[in-house]
């Protein structure tokens, strides 16, 4: 993935800020990766190289940890993250139908991000809300008892919000132009 101008510098600064707070012991590797991902949304190749260099461990070790754990992402996420729970209860209550619905509506497969980087779709093993299955985590909010119609509703809410903010932006621009 190509980085945008200025992005590399931003990554370097953020990673540096994280590294400053931790020692170089190997045991800090996962917490460091977690915090870098918290700040950047994903683990860019450049960040992993920088971490390896700083901790004096082979790059492959950083990459190995980054790819072993499900939590780490190697690509930038969408503006809105949709996580469909695929726990047993959710699956038996129709979680796979919900995932299908999102895939169809967003026209991407799970693990992908829409081309406009608006939405990314992921599956999670279990969010521990089995009693309210099927469950979807949209950004940080847990939506319970989701149906295919609710999927349309969730996406429509974002659509409307986007339109609204677009209008506001438009108005602002108009205002500043005057």
């Amino acid at each position: 993935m190509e980085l945008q101008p200025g992005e590399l510098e931003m990554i370097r600064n953020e990673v540096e800020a994280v590294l400053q707070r931790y020692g170089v012991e190997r045991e800090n590797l996962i917490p460091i990766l977690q915090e870098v991902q918290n700040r950047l949304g994903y683990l860019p190749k450049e960040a992993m190289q920088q971490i390896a260099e700083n901790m004096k461990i082979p790059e492959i070790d950083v990459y190995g940890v980054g790819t072993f754990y499900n939590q780490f992402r190697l690509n930038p996420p969408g503006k809105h993250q949709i996580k469909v729970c695929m726990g047993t209860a959710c699956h038996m209550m129709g979680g796979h139908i919900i995932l299908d619905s999102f895939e169809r509506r967003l026209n991407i497969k799970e693990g992908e991000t829409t081309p406009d980087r608006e939405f990314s779709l992921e599956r999670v093993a279990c969010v521990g809300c089995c009693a309210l299955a099927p469950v979807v985590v949209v950004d940080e909010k847990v939506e319970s008892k989701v149906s295919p119609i609710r999927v349309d509703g969730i996406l429509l809410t974002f659509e409307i919000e986007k339109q609204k903010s677009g209008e506001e932006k438009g108005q602002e621009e108009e205002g500043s132009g005057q």
Partner: protein
Amino acid sequence: MKTAGPAIVETYQQLKREARKKFEALKEKPLVLVGTATCGRAAGALNVLAAFREEISRNQLDAGVREVGCMGHCYAEPMVIIYKPGFPPLCYGPVDEGTAGRLVVDFLINDDPCFEFAIAALEPNDFFPTFSDYPRGIYENKIILANCGLIDPEDIDHYLAHEGYEALAKVLTMDPAAVVAEIKSSKLRGRGGAGFPTGIKWETCRNTSGTPKYVICNADEGDPGAFMDRALLESNPHQVLEGLIIAAYAVGASQGYIYVRAEYPLAVTRVKTALEQARERGLLGESILGSDFSFDIKIFQGSGAFVCGEETALIASIEGSPGIPNHRPPFPATSGLRGKPTVINNVKTLSYVPHIIRKGAEWFRSIGTENSPGTAVFALAGKVNNTGLAEVPMGTTLRQLLYDVGNGIKNDKRFKAVQIGGPSGGCLPESALDIPIDFDSLQQAGAMMGSGGLVVLDEDDCMVEIARFFLDFTQKESCGKCTFCRLGTKQMLDILTEITRGRGRPEDIDLLWELAEDIKAGSLCGLGKTAPNPVLTTIRYFRDEYEAHIQEGRCPALMCKELITYYIVPEKCSKLCNVCIGSCPVEAIYTRPDMLKAIYLDKCVKCNSCMVACPPQYQAVIKISPPIVEDKGDQAHEQTSGNNR
């Protein structure tokens, strides 16, 4: 240091007296408790919380509002408990913003307790039944869940006011060896799944030389379908901390870790708060309660790898490596984190420890069965009416658990099986409902206690599909170290997928069985050793379903997408209603010239929306298996002799 004994107890008593005073003062005026654990939040508890706060301030009432954890009655989330002087404490649910408004006006202002919204009272009284008046209450025996949902998890004084940290004060005056002996004599078995005796683990660690020693709380609850560790950490984090501190004292550890899943952000926050408060009160850190015992706890966030629930993988993960298990022995109790003796216990196991220390090993042994004493916490989910957490004595039967505690199967459907123990467990049929549940009897039936996740399946659930689901899970989560686990589960998954698509071969069942035996024998850790369990138990108990898929290309439960067709029965369809057309996300339903509705089979994505949408008086949408090959209108229906519903 026994000389400091009386001083330690006095320091603790002082803390407790102050906490009691503070807690009792809360109840002198009306108090509203809103359950805001993750399950409550998913059901809208934060809106309810805001509604209560707003209504109370708008009416300028002198009433407290507090966030609490989960009581285990997840089917009734969001739940609210109201204490008002002069009334029994009442529990309401499910509460929405409207109900919240009414409760404030009618109850808090006007003294009408709104019994129509109430579930139960918390104390015996003359007006309203308590939880123990329901069948669920009769079977339930809450030990570690007792205070969940009743105390504020972010206020240490609430825990202190309920005998919290009393066990810690007690052990600090005891010889560590005596603490280990007490746990050993209680016969407490690890609640993480395998049921290894906790006392023996502690003793091994204590008797091994090597410093420093470590204790780790395993809160990497990865079993899909289990959420009791999350609920405990979110509802009563201090109980776990106290257990961990006692474990550290008993084995002589100076550093502890809590390994929590990153998927549980609220649990992490609440544990962090709990740690800070415990340090402030001198219950954690340097010379705890004035004794010469020092110990501290760090939180380590897992990163989403199921295999890290395994002890050696968990250690590898803390050390900064991929969570790949190692060969045991040496067991972590002799050589664990950084090669030092390490005790790893599950959240639930540690939660029992303070209770055992306070009430004695004998009390604990008096509950449950001979070889599995105590209670078991189950997470009821799936097609059962009262989903949630239930704590019952070991030895309760599955039937009691499902029909009395869980209040039966949803929508009066027929019970088919119960999936117990997550990916490591198995599916038990109706004939197994009367076995008493404990570590050993479940193992005999081919399943496993696991962490206690219990998913109820009804006649609409396909057993081949659920076996495929679990294999898919374990195959994705296999760390890849052992060939049998890495490739064997993949092979099994491929076979199962083919079967659910109607392309199975007659010899597949035997092949699955063979592969399962090999994977069990050839894998190093519990993940691989137990991965075939769901397949083995479904073949053992539901072989006919496998055969129907393979030989007849039909899914008896009407679940496997490739083997079903949605169909609208013309005789049942109303010409006047268009609900199904509106519900279809892909415009696959059309109106025929005679105004009846029909489905374009090539467009249908089998999302079930039309079936849900069709009004109950018609029920015109049905599923057919084996599927209709080509859309030939009415004739197609007559051709299919398969089962339909």
